[in-house]
């Protein structure tokens, strides 16, 4: 069977819409009497709001209403965040970063709303800004929050621990340990301690944050670009104190997200704007505002790693500081995943890791493709090379000696490794032709890894099969560019034995769609896919039972062959059989399916990880020793799809993630200058363009067939993000000896590292 041909892009109607301009995004939604919103944002990193004078703004013709913190008073729970809820729907008495939303204007059009924001007078009392982790942790630093944090930690299990508000300006601390790290580090033949830093980047999704909301009576309806419709529904329900069934979310196509559109952001504020205005309101942020909404966590990671005399890894201690920015967002999860994943794809006697989230007066950090895995893999895979070089061995030899084997658990009681890490490494190396040894050229490798599929995740699905054999798949996996709906249709039609082209993916609408936990953490093909497969098999069973009743035989005696039932030598076409029995417009066999990964307190995450997502990464670079310029000549990145439903889509996911990781490694960064971002505009925040990519940039899709999803598949959406930076830094060291421990690899840092190297050599020769 050619899975590729049968699920090709040409065969899927939604894909065709994307090349004809016919695809509908939240950006395109327009409803009658629709008003428009604009937000006023704080220019200060940290200030108390003394007063807000709306009089002049409200007098502008066309202004309908304005929301400020005063309007939150009658909301039962006006805060959001994952686990811990500290972000108010709009600033109440205080702003905590330059960009914090202070007022929200609703007017007849965007121009008027914008003018009104400029007419609002806010009297601020500036407070000391805490622009770095060091400043936030300094003794006597002012508190960014004076009250204890609301909410609780996400689910955790054996070996994991947490503390909420453990120290001033520290939001959350996650600890993870197994084995006796003190003992094994003490017993180690060699112990190395190194510190690594990673920078702040933004998602830069091209479709801005955009939502349209309106109320009818006590119910609110929203067209949203959010990638987690049921999470959003639950948040709005909680914040407004209304039943979930009074909140209806429609999710059309999403114009990119990469984590930026997960969990709740400005949607509750929009619901409040629409309620106060008494009319539908569209709130489309500008890209400048997207840059001020969420970033990936900058972090500093100190790893202490011990090995025995044979070069076997024994124990690792990790101390990780994540800059969480002003509000929690998904920081709890990011701390958990960074701390948990710090061991990388290797076997250990002991791990002792602690990841803290420190609050600073900067843009909130949160979910970004591969979160935790990016930070942990960067530090871990960079240190692996540094250790190998110090030991005088080939870095790949050190890796191969210590890799987890197929089936070996990543951590005690967790699921086993569901791919062959060594085979993937061989496949990578085979695609990296040895370069002519040339001064300034070098090669580097890394194996990033993260778990995928979420913790204790669940999904439900419905598959409807009509009298013609047409298939309607209904599930909450949204199309954010990954081709989720096409994958769901492929899974359903494979289970039913129907052609791919016979399937349609139903619009996602919380009023009709069976729920899931959100399209994130690379879970859709696995978790929602299992629910869809079960629903398809249920529909198939109903069809066979119907046929058995009509033919007076057992369902087990029937085979589905094309759109007919085979009963021994007889072939019975289904459409006439169904029509003759039901008449009318026909009939649908509606199958239901679900999947739930059970909670299991014996596992570190509180449930077994559903799948594992390695990122085999290789880079070849050329470094100019005079200028410090690094040219990435070749970049190869591979991931394991278990079983590929659409090879092209898999390559696209891997390469797209790798492009983001490449840019973060080389140049992309949201920089601060004083209390405000220096480059939070579309022009000055530089993302890669076509000509910026390495001259040779390719990917490979491993199909090790061991995934937990239908037919051994598993998600790969985040894989490409987690190994690239370390591979490039490892290649730079191979090329010229410059040992980089900070991202991005600017020429200044390369020259600095070269200077440090030559002074080390001078010192050693004295």
């Amino acid at each position, binding site marked *: 069977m050619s899975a590729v041909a049968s699920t*090709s*892009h*040409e065969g899927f109607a939604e*894909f*065709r*819409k*994307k*090349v*004809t*301009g*016919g*695809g*509908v*995004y939240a*950006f*395109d939604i327009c409803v009658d009497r629709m008003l428009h919103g604009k937000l006023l944002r704080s220019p200060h990193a940290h200030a108390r709001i003394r007063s807000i004078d709306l009089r002049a703004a409200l007098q502008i013709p066309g202004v309908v209403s304005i929301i400020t913190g005063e309007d939150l008073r009658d909301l039962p729970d006006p805060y959001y965040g994952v686990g811990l809820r500290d972000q108010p729907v709009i600033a109440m008495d205080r702003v905590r970063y330059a960009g914090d939303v202070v007022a929200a204007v609703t007017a007849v059009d965007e121009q008027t709303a914008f003018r009104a924001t400029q007419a609002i007078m806010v009297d601020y009392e500036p407070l000391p800004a805490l622009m770095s982790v060091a400043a936030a942790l300094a003794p006597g630093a002012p508190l960014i929050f004076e009250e204890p944090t609301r909410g609780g930690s996400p689910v955790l299990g054996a070996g994991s621990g947490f503390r909420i508000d453990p120290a001033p300006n520290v939001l959350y601390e996650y600890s993870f340990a197994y084995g006796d790290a003190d003992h094994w580090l003490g017993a180690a033949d060699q112990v190395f301690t190194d510190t690594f830093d990673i920078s702040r980047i933004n*998602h*830069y*999704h*091209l*479709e*801005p944050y955009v939502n349209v909301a309106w109320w009818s009576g006590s119910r609110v309806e929203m067209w949203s670009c959010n990638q987690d419709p049921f999470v959003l529904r639950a948040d709005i329900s909680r914040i407004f104190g209304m039943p979930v069934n009074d909140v209806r979310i429609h999710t059309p*196509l*999403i*114009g*990119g*997200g*990469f984590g930026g559109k997960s969990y709740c952001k400005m949607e509750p504020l929009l619901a409040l704007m629409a309620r106060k205005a008494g009319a539908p309101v569209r709130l489309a942020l*500008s*890209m400048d505002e997207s840059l001020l909404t969420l970033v990936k966590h900058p972090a500093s990671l100190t790893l202490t790693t011990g090995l025995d005399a044979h070069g076997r890894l024994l124990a690792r201690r990790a101390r990780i500081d994540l800059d969480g920015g002003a509000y929690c967002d998904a920081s709890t999860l990011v701390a958990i995943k960074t701390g948990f994943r710090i061991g990388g794809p290797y076997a250990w006697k002991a791990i002792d890791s602690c990841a803290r989230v420190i609050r600073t007066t900067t843009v909130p950090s949160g979910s970004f493709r591969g979160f935790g895995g990016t930070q942990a893999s960067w530090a871990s895979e960079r240190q692996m090379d540094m250790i190998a070089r110090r030991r005088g061995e080939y870095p790949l030899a050190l890796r191969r000696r210590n890799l987890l084997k197929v089936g070996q658990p990543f951590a005690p009681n967790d699921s086993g490794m569901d791919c062959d890490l060594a085979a993937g490494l061989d496949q990578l190396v085979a695609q990296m032709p040895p370069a002519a040894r040339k001064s300034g050229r070098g090669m580097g490798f890394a194996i990033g890894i993260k778990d995928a599929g979420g913790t204790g995740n669940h999904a439900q699905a419905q598959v409807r099969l009509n009298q013609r054999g047409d298939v309607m798949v209904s599930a909450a996996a949204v*199309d*954010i*560019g*990954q*081709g989720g709906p096409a994958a769901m249709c492929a899974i359903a039609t494979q289970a039913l034995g129907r052609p791919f082209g016979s399937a349609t993916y139903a619009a996602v609408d919380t009023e009709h769609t069976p729920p899931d936990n959100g399209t994130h953490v690379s879970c859709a093909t696995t978790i929602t896919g299992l629910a869809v497969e079960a629903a398809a098999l249920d529909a198939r069973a109903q069809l066979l039972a119907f046929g058995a009743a009509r033919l007076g035989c057992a369902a087990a005696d029937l085979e589905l062959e094309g759109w007919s039932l085979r009963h021994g030598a007889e072939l019975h076409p289904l459409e006439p059989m169904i029509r003759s029995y039901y008449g009318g417009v026909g009939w649908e066999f509606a199958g239901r399916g679900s999947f739930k990964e059970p909670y299991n307190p014996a596992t570190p995450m509180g449930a077994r990880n559903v799948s594992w997502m390695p990122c085999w990464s290789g880079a070849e670079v050329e470094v100019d020793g005079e200028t410090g310029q690094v040219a990435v000549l070749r970049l190869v990145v591979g991931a394991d799809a278990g079983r590929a439903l*659409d090879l*092209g*889509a898999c*390559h*696209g*996911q891997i*390469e*797209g993630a*790798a*492009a*983001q990781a490449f840019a973060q490694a080389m140049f992309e960064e949201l920089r601060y200058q004083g209390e405000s971002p220096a480059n939070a*505009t*579309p*022009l000055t925040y530089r*993302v*890669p*363009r*076509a*000509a910026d*990519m390495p001259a040779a*940039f*390719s*990917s490979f899709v491993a199909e090790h067939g061991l995934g937990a999803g239908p037919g051994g598949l598993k998600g790969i959406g985040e894989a490409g993000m987690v190994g690239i930076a370390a591979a490039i830094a490892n290649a730079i060291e191979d090329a010229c000896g410059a040992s980089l421990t900070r991202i991005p690899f600017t020429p200044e840092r390369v020259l600095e590292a070269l200077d440090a190297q030559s002074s080390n050599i001078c010192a050693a020769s004295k």
Partner: protein
Amino acid sequence: MTIPVSLVINGKTQAFDVGAHHVVADVLRERFGLTGCKVGCDQGVCGACTVLVDGAPVTGCATFMFAVDGREVTTIEGLGLDGALSPVQQAFLAAGAFQCGFCTAGMILSVTALLLRDRDPDEATIRQWLAGNICRCTGYNAIVEAVRRAARQVAEAS
């Protein structure tokens, strides 16, 4: 202040009045329902709103409507004939040269303009030409492949 304009949009002559501050993307989307023209950055940087004016790509968000008076504007909806895809659209579909699709219309129009100028562009030319169109999803390989496919298809058809 309103300004009368007369121009051809996707092959059809249109005469109407516009405000001096109205930009092409907003008029196409709001007046003509041509929502295939997406606005990403709204600052002429990302290229999602690219449309063709007399065959040359311009950013619809940063071009005043009065500036295209008397010209011929082509949007993604104007490519292809009678429901058939243009060679570039077909190549993007076949190569899977899109993910979220928000940049795709602009990308396809840019490539259409490139192939009008250079029927056999090499990879460096393709990548340089696409400097005005950001794709945050794909990493660009599939897009470059689609351009090659489209070039082959155009060459075979002529």
